[in-house]
Every structure is written in C-alpha cells, then in structure tokens.
C-alpha cells in the first residue's frame, strides 16, 4: 500500500496534468489520430476544444479529491461525456470510436505518472490503479450513453414505421385493399384492424382485400389476428378476402391446423380484386381493335 493519503493522490495527478497540459493534450490527440479518429466526421479543432474542456473538468474533479466516478464530484464531466457520446452516436461514430476518446487518454496520462513516480514502485502502482479505474469508468459510461442514444433513435424509427406501415388503399368504389408488409404482431394488428374498419365506415366499402404478400411468415398468432380482423369487418357488414397467400404460407397454415375455411383466400391481389368486383356486380368487356368484343 502507498503511504500517501487518497485525496493527496488525486491532487498529485491534477498538479501533474497542470504542469504538462500541452504535452498531454498533444499526445492524447496523437493517440486518437491513430486507428480511430474520424477526420471525415469531426474537425481537428473541434476535437482539440473537447479535449481541453475535458482536461479542465478532469482537473476539477481530481481536485475534488475522489477517484470514485459515481460521486457528485464528477457530475460535470459525466454531463460532458454524455453530450459527446450522444452527438457522436448521431454523427455516425462506432461505439469503439466513441469510447476511445476516453481510453486514448490513458497512455499519455500513464507516461506522465511513470515519469513522476518512476522511482517509488508502490506509489506508481497505486496511482496507476486508481487512474485506470477512473478512466475505465468514464469509458464505460460513454459506451452506455452511446447505446442509450442509439436505442432512442431505434425506438423513434419503430414508431414512425408503425404509422407508415398500414396504408388503406381504395381500389374501386366499394373495394378497399390493405397491403400488409412485415411481420404482424399484436400492437401492429391493432393498428391495422382499426385503420381498416375506420376506412370501411368512411368509404362505405362492401369488400376489403387484405394482401399478405409482404408478410414473411404466418404463425398461429398472426393467423388469429387475421381472423379477428376478418370477423370484425364482417360484423360491420363488409366482406374480407385474404390475398397473396404464398405456397410456403399455405403449407404452414395447413400444418398448423389453422381453420381458414370461413374466409375467402386468393393467391394474388388481382384474383381477389376480380372476386370483389364480381360481388359488386361489376364486369369488364375486353375490346378488340378498339371496338367492343361482342
């Protein structure tokens, strides 16, 4: 064990940094410019500003006399690190590149410590260990904030996707189509069901076609959701046709023992549309040479 008291150790490091500020920042930047610095995403001057700001806050924290990163002494620096991580997550840095902002400070700092305490092995080891712990805590903290910001972005995108993914299309007077793309889960089915039923009321449609060409897999849950939607539409007085059943899905449905006999199913949207028009009593006559066929 070192004979120096704990808070003296932090002040020693702080004083060390004050004396060697210029060399420390230069060496730190040089470390970062190795494999991980992204000059395409961030300017040198901006990075230098961040470094010196970090250094100032680090000194303040060290003067507070505590190596424990969770304590309130380090509030300011935590704030700054979260700001940096968040902006880097948005700018497109990788987690490693973000965390290396803190980790690349290790080498220059350790060099300084070795120069200072080189003769006294005990103090050197104690200083090294305390500093390592502190910097590791900072690095992990940046990684954590980075992850959290990414998750926020993902969550927002998911919500946007949910809103975008349920368009109800009017194909004909009284015929609606609902092309579903992507996996159906409970939350999404709720949105799908509500928007379809609402559209049925608004457009007074008698036939609704649910197209599942874009649904990758159908399991019992998805099938149940589909059946619920079909039943609800029937209760309102609209017929539902399920179209876009791929061979693979037809096989799965039969293997799972799902009963779709009460629902009209068609292989393609075109076939379903034809049936829908038939139910409305609409028919087409193909013209030849610009004249009616019959």
């Amino acid at each position, binding site marked *: 064990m070192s004979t120096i008291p704990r808070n003296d150790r932090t002040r020693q490091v702080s004083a060390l940094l004050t004396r060697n500020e210029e060399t420390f920042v230069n060496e730190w930047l040089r470390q970062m410019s190795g494999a991980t610095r992204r000059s395409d995403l961030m300017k040198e001057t901006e990075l230098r500003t961040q470094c010196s700001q970090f250094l100032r806050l680090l000194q303040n924290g060290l003067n507070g006399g505590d190596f424990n990163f969770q304590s309130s002494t380090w509030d300011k620096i935590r704030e700054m690190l979260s700001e940096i991580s968040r902006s880097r997550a948005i700018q497109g840095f990788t987690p490693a590149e973000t965390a290396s902002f803190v980790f690349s400070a290790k080498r220059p700092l350790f060099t300084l410590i070795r120069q200072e305490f080189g003769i006294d092995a005990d103090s050197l080891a104690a200083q090294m260990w305390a500093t390592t712990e502190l910097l590791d805590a900072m690095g992990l903290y940046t990684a954590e904030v980075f992850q959290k910001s990414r998750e926020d972005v993902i969550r927002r995108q998911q919500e946007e996707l949910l809103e975008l993914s349920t368009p109800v299309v009017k194909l004909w007077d009284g015929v609606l189509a609902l092309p579903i793309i992507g996996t159906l889960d409970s939350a999404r089915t709720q949105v799908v*069901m*509500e928007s379809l*039923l*609402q559209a*049925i*009321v608004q457009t*007074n*449609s*008698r036939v609704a076609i649910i197209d599942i060409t874009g649904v990758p897999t159908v399991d019992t849950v998805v099938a149940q959701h589909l059946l*619920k939607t079909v*039943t*609800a*539409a*029937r*209760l*309102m*007085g*609209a017929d539902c046709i399920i179209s876009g059943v791929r061979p693979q899905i037809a096989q799965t449905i039969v293997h799972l023992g799902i009963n779709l006999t009460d629902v009209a199913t068609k292989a393609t949207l075109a076939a379903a549309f034809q049936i829908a028009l038939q139910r409305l009593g609409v028919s087409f006559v193909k013209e030849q040479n610009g004249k009616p066929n019959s």
Partner: protein
Amino acid sequence: MEKIPILKMGEFLLVTIQVDMHDRLAMALQDDLTNAISETEARGVLIDISSLEIVDSFIGRMLANIAAMSRVLDAQTVVVGMQPAVAITLVELGLSLPGVRTALNVDAGMEVLRASVNGA
C-alpha cells in the same frame, strides 16, 4: 319506462337502437320484437345499431339470440351500421355472431333482406 320503437316497413320490421342499451331494455326488446314478428308475420328484421357505441357480452349475446329467435319465426335478421369499436369489442369478447347477417348501412341491409326473401 323507455322503449325501443319497432317500425313496420312493408314485410320487414325496422329497429333502430338510439339509446344506451342496458340489460332490461335488451330483454324488453327481445319480447317486443318476437311478439311483433308473430303479429305482423314479418319476413325480415333490420336492426340498426349505428348509434350504439358501447357493447358488453350480454348485448352481444342478445343480438345473437334475437337473430336465432327470428329465424325460428321465419324472419331473417340483418344487423347494420356497427361501429368499428363495437366490432373490435365483440371480436375480442369472442362473440363473432355466426348466425347474424350484417350490412354497412340501412340501404345495404334492406337489399340483403329483399334478396334473401325473394330468393327463398
């Protein structure tokens, strides 16, 4: 006590539910309607529930019962104008009203009734 009016339109009966249904009212409607069918020898019953915003399992079952009773009395039942929220609730309750015909509005419902009566 409030009552749900039952109107006669040719050979059909027209019931519009415009108040919140409670259980006693539903039972009274069931009585009145079966009586009216046998008195008027109606061939079809059209129940308009477009103003009905809240249903429970009892009302759902009552609709199914009315349809079944009418069928026994040789009259077709069509339920028209169900709101999306009501439809979702009924499905979630597991009441898919298998024997009940449905239509979007009174016009479409009348068409369904005429077709089924003429076809029979």
